[in-house]
Each structure stands twice: as C-alpha cells, then as structure tokens.
C-alpha cells in the first residue's frame, strides 16, 4: 500500500507530476496542432531543443511563446550532439536560454540507429551533474551503463525502447525488465522507439515510471487524437502494474470453479 501511494505521482529531481507522459514538440503539422496535442496528452513536460537563429525574424521566439502557452515544464535536449564537448556546451546554452537545470542528454554514436555513444554519455553526464545540471540521459537498455550513469549523479534514466522514430516498440523487453528489477528505486523512463499506445502500455506494465515520445504522436494521421490515446494507454499500463499482473503459464487453468460441476462432466472421465 505504501508503494502504491508513493508512486501516485511521477517524481523527477524533486518535482512531482500527475501525468507520466513526456511529449516531444517536433514534426507536428502546425503550431496549433502541436499545442492541441500537448493539451490532449495532459503531459506535464515537453521536450525542446536549440537551433541556429538565422535572422531577425525571431522564429525561435515565436516557438518559445507558443510552447509557454502549454503551461508544461520544458526539458531541453542536446539532440544532434556527437561528442562530449558538443553535448556539454549545448547543455550550458540550453540552461541559460530555457532557465532550467534540466537537460535531456543525448550523445549520438551512430547515424543509422541514432543510438547513444554510451561512453561519451557517461562522461558528459559526470561533467554536467558536477556542474549542477539535473540530467536525463538518453541511453540504451544496458545494465552496466545504467549503473555508471547513476554513479555519475543521474537520478533518472531514459533507456530506449527502439531506435528514435522507428515506431518498433520495445525491441528488448527482457533487458528492460532486467533494468527495472535491478534498479527498483530509480526513476526509469522509456524514451524513443514507441509507435503505438499498446507499446507504451507494455512499458508501463513492466513497471516503468513514464514514457517519452514524439514521432508517434506528431506524425500520426490525427496527432491530437493519438496524444489522447497515448495518455490513456500510459495511465492504463501504470494502473495495471500497480494492480499486480498474474504470472503467464504454458497450460490452461480453468477460471470456472470445478467444484460441483454438473453431471455431464463425469461422462468424459475414465
């Protein structure tokens, strides 16, 4: 009972959130649909990024004004960074611009899969945690890397489900389950690869604390409806985890009590 009460809200570096859905802000058909999708998702956290400001048109400021209307807390990322130096300096720029110590740390190691360079990730995490950042590392489902990220000072881990934007769901449920079991008290968020609400629910049923996704909503035929569908699936998966699932088994087990079975059952015996 204590566990259930303690897990009512998502706790991220001391801040609590009712929703367990973190949503990305990229690739939407229009700014208005982005805003509507955020509202439909009920997400308390929206990921954002940095880009080169081309001119005086203030495109960056237009986005900034729009995203503030959502009322969500912002989680800036270091997307596109491939070295520790790039990631650390981008994190500093994000902290100044968005006025937050939160950083979704990405150090990309491979272009085809966009998988993290976990060696650079751990090093960058160590530097940024020491500098007062609250780091959300985008990582793989590797247990040892997870351990090193925690030792570096991370209080939240964000293992991938599958490559970014792939929509494949949970490529390795076994590894994700092992990660959950090994770090029962660490906040774990599945980040990347989710394509369907059922896949988000699956991650939550494994006991994950939250889901971060972008493409599955933004590129859906109806992003606003899909945001709502994900919100329901994430909540349902979390409720299912708290409720305690049955163990899967190979053979059937009758759900109807056999005691007092009608007489015709006896005819099939002997």
């Amino acid at each position, binding site marked *: 009972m204590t566990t259930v009460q303690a897990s009512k809200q998502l706790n991220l570096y001391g801040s609590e959130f009712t929703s367990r859905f973190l949503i*990305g*802000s*990229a*690739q*939407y058909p229009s700014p208005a649909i*982005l805003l509507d999708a955020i509202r439909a998702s009920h997400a308390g956290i929206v*990921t*954002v*990024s*940095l*880009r*080169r*400001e*081309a*001119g*005086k048109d*203030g*495109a*960056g*400021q237009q*986005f*900034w004004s729009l*995203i503030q209307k959502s009322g969500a807390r912002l989680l*800036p*990322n270091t*997307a596109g960074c491939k070295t520790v*130096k*790039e990631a650390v*300096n981008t994190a*500093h*720029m*994000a902290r*100044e*611009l*968005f006025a937050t110590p939160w950083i979704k740390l990405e150090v990309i190691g491979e272009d085809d899969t966009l998988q993290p360079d976990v060696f650079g990730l751990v090093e960058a995490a160590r530097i940024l945690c020491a500098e007062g950042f609250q780091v959300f590392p985008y990582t793989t489902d590797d247990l040892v890397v997870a351990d090193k990220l925690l030792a570096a000072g991370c209080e939240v881990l964000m293992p991938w489900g599958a490559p*970014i*934007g792939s929509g494949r769901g949970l490529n390795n449920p076994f590894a994700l389950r092992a990660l959950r079991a090994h770090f029962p008290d660490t906040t774990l968020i599945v980040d990347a690869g989710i394509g369907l609400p059922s896949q988000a629910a699956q991650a939550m049923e494994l006991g994950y604390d939250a889901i971060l996704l*972008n*493409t599955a909503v933004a590129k859906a035929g109806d992003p606003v409806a899909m945001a709502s569908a994900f919100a329901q699936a994430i909540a349902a998966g979390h409720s299912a985890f708290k409720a305690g699932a049955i163990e899967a088994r190979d053979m059937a087990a009758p759900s109807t009590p056999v005691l007092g079975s009608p007489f015709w059952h006896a005819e099939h015996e002997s």
Partner: protein
Amino acid sequence: MKIQLNGASYDTEHPELAALVAALGHEADKVATAVDGLFVARPARAATLLREGCAVEILAPMEGG
C-alpha cells in the same frame, strides 16, 4: 573581419560578441552563444573578443523530441 557565423562566412566590424549579437538584431536574453565550440554566458559576451576566422554560434529555442 571575416568570421564563421552559424556555419556560414560572415563579415563583421564588431570586435566583441555582445556587439555582434546586438547588430544582428537579437535581444541579448533571447539567444545563447558559443565561440569556437565553447559556451559564452550572457554576462561574458561583452568581454569576449572575436578573432579572424573564429566560429560563432547563436542559438534560439526550437522544437525537439
């Protein structure tokens, strides 16, 4: 003086980063800056001198996943 501004060649007569940011029409607190790959905090821009060929990055918020 020729510098690299956001990845493109750019001629500027402004010797300090803060002056360049202002000359480009950016409000100081609406962008973040780096020179040669290193973050330059807002208060340090006035004292940051630009050199021939240096790489200046001026970044603003954008959507992200």
